[in-house]
């Protein structure tokens, strides 16, 4: 479904991701690990269509379409969801209004505000957010935990075919991690493909990935299965760093 | 102005007796990534009149220009007068411009606090004024 082949990504004339190849099919969970600054988030943002990132080599295709030809919103409406580590506050826009507009963008039928309100209310509940969340301005004054939970709630409301989750677990407690694990299991059953980015091996106590990739300095150093992740848990990333 | 040029204007004024102090600053951003900072602190005493005019113009072509005007004045006597006019004219989209001004008396709460720690009212005011004016100097050193 999501196919990356020898992908190079450049930001401000500097190539920061090199020669990445990856295939994610429905119901597959891929985990991407790597030290800070290895390019994981850059990869996520570039796939989402961030204007500062350019695909300068190779191919990125989603549902058979070359995504480098698609704008960020076209990719999103096709079903590519990228969880933001730091979504920007949008003052003056209540969460419910945002959801309403986003849902409406995906449907030709008119969506009643009442429907949106109840959808937002139940999502808030599911993700441990207060019932008043619908009225709060989007990401304005949200704590780190609230932000992560909100992004997850938005994913559950909007739906996706491929979800790229960039460290959704950071800043969350055990309950939060379990919640994410439950959601992931559910999404996989529903047919999503997931790329889960983390540098916290603990998360893998709750989910079993199909593939694990290690990213070092913008490239995949190695790919494997859960054993690879356990290796990292014990030895860290040092063994994967290039010889100096 | 050349691209990426920057200007920082930091000033302190003290107007007293019958001073009439017109301050006029004009900054034109014409090239990309230019930056300006105007930082003014002053006090007006006795019968002085302070008239502060700043005009920051960010013209077309001044992409990513960044202008800030920050002007504060303390009026220390009933007969002092102050006029502030920090104008901004912006003709280019990718810019950031802000200005902040304040004019008013010394803060009564601050004076009271110092007094409650044994400082005379006279001395307290002196301290606060010095602190107020010192900020401009302080900024220069940090940069």
């Amino acid at each position, binding site marked *: 479904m999501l196919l990356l082949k020898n992908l190079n990504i450049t930001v401000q004339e500097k190539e920061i991701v090199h020669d990445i190849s990856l295939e994610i099919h429905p119901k597959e969970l891929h985990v991407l690990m790597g030290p800070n600054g290895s390019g994981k988030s850059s990869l996520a943002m570039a796939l989402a269509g*961030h204007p500062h990132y350019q695909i300068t080599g190779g191919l990125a295709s989603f549902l058979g379409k070359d995504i480098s030809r698609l704008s*960020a919103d076209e990719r999103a409406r096709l079903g590519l969801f990228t969880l933001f580590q730091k979504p920007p506050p*949008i003052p003056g*826009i209540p969460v419910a*209004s945002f959801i309403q507009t986003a849902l409406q*963008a995906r449907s030709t039928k008119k969506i009643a505000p009442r429907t949106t309100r109840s959808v937002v209310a139940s999502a808030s509940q599911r993700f441990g957010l207060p019932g008043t969340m619908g009225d709060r301005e989007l990401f304005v004054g949200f704590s780190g935990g609230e932000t992560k939970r909100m992004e997850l709630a938005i994913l559950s409301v909007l739906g996706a075919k491929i979800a790229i989750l960039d460290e959704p677990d950071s800043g969350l407690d055990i309950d939060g991690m379990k919640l994410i694990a439950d959601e992931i299991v559910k999404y996989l059953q529903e047919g999503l493909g997931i790329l889960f980015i983390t540098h916290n091996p603990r998360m893998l106590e709750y989910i079993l990935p199909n593939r694990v990739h290690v990213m070092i300095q913008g490239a995949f150093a190695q790919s494997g299965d859960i054993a690879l992740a356990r290796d990292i848990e014990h030895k860290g990333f040092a063994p994967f760093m290039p010889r100096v | 102005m050349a691209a990426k040029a920057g200007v920082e204007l930091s000033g302190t004024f003290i107007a007293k007796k019958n001073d009439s102090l017109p301050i006029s600053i004009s900054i034109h951003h014409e090239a990309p990534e230019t930056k300006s900072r105007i930082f003014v602190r002053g006090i007006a005493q006795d019968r002085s009149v302070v008239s502060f005019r700043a005009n920051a113009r960010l013209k*077309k072509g001044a992409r990513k220009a960044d202008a800030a005007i920050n002007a504060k004045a303390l009026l220390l006597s009933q007969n002092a007068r102050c006029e502030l006019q920090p104008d*901004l004219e912006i003709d280019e989209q990718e810019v950031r411009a802000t200005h902040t001004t304040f004019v*008013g008396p010394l803060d009564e709460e601050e004076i009271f606090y110092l007094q409650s720690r044994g400082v005379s009212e006279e001395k307290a005011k002196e301290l606060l004024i010095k602190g107020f004016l010192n900020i401009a100097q302080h900024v220069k050193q940090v940069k």
Partner: protein
Amino acid sequence: MSFTPPTYQYGFWVKDRPYFRSPHGLTKKAVEELSFQKNEPEWMLKKRLEAFDIFFKKDMPEWGADLSGIRFQDIISYLKPTAEQSKRWEDVPEGIKYTFDRLGIPEAERKFLAGVSAQFDSEVVYHKIKKKLEQQGVIFCDTDSAIRNYPEFFQEYFGKLIPAADNKFAALNTAFWSGGSFVYIPQGIHVDIPLQAYFRINARNMGQFERTLIIAEPGSSVHYIEGCTAPVYSQDALHAAVVEIVVKKNARVQYTTIQNWSNDVYNLVTKRAFVEEEGEMLWIDGNLGSKVTMKYPSVFLKGQKARGEILSLAVAGRAQHQDAGGKAIHIAPETSSLITSKSVSHTGGRTSYRGLVRVTPNAKRARSHVQCDALILDKDSRSDTYPTTQTNEASARLSHEATVTKLSDEQLFYLKARGLKEADARSMIVNGFLEPVVKTLPLEYAIELNRLIELQMEGAVG
């Protein structure tokens, strides 16, 4: 001079008022004719004629927007007691029709708004409201009737807040005014429904030179709403209205304006409120339309603890210049003022914030804060701020903050990454930016306003 017999009813207050046409243009005779047609008392004619002389003596303002396009002689080729356009629906510009469609305004109402038909249900609504108000002793009628029925108020207040000599356009208005509202709220009375100019029969045909006077007696309160969000197509190229508001002790007046004149109109308005002890005046000023608007609602805080607030919203698109803001003059102790301005310029439009906060000696411990924020959406557009602070009183605390920015790339990207099309994402951010002002409007207005801004930004409305 030719009379055109009425082809419609103005409303119950005027039975056979002729539709007045004057070939005299901008002359004293035109003033006299107008006054005669209205059957005005001598003192009003006198004021008009004095103002007429002042108008010619006064210079055009040397600051502000570009007014060089105004041709006075063309503008006053004919006068109406209240402007009524007999236009065919077919003559209404496509852009205007399209907007009505998008805003979901029913056919009949559309024709009325376009000045095509005067038949409208508002008469029934008006009567119901009028009955309720009468029980409270509240007066709400058009200025023309008020001059005849309540002359004492006008002799006391007309031209006192805004004399003809104030500025050239106030003089023009004082000489040629016609239409507008008169509102009087007796002591201690609170009017709980917003009074809308809309409800005044044929008031939605915005007069060229409307003159409004509102008097709120001590302890009273009222909310008056002028204008509407649907674009008003006007044949007149110049609108110069005057609004005078007297807020007495402990009274509260809110005056909300949503202006959306068609893009060939010069909209030059003088609005002023005098606020007495512990009174409160709130101006909410929304400027979306017109070619040029120059408008600075002001509050003169004359009594102790008087409070004034001005919320200004301006959106300027192609070939538009919104030059708006507010003025707060502190004359008494413990007075406070708050000016909040939110402006958006796009597609080559220009917004200017122009404001004045002045504190006179002995306005002890006066407090004022001005917050003006401007958003520039593209590289052809422009934004300026010209804030003036003048103080003569050492104990007053006056602060001001202004920011000018473009749309945040990060916000745009996030919204697009959630599936919103570019235009929707931009609208959302702009609506969020304007929200602090929009939220003060009654809900229906807020919703319509947001939709209208979206439309404007799409370029659908000319």
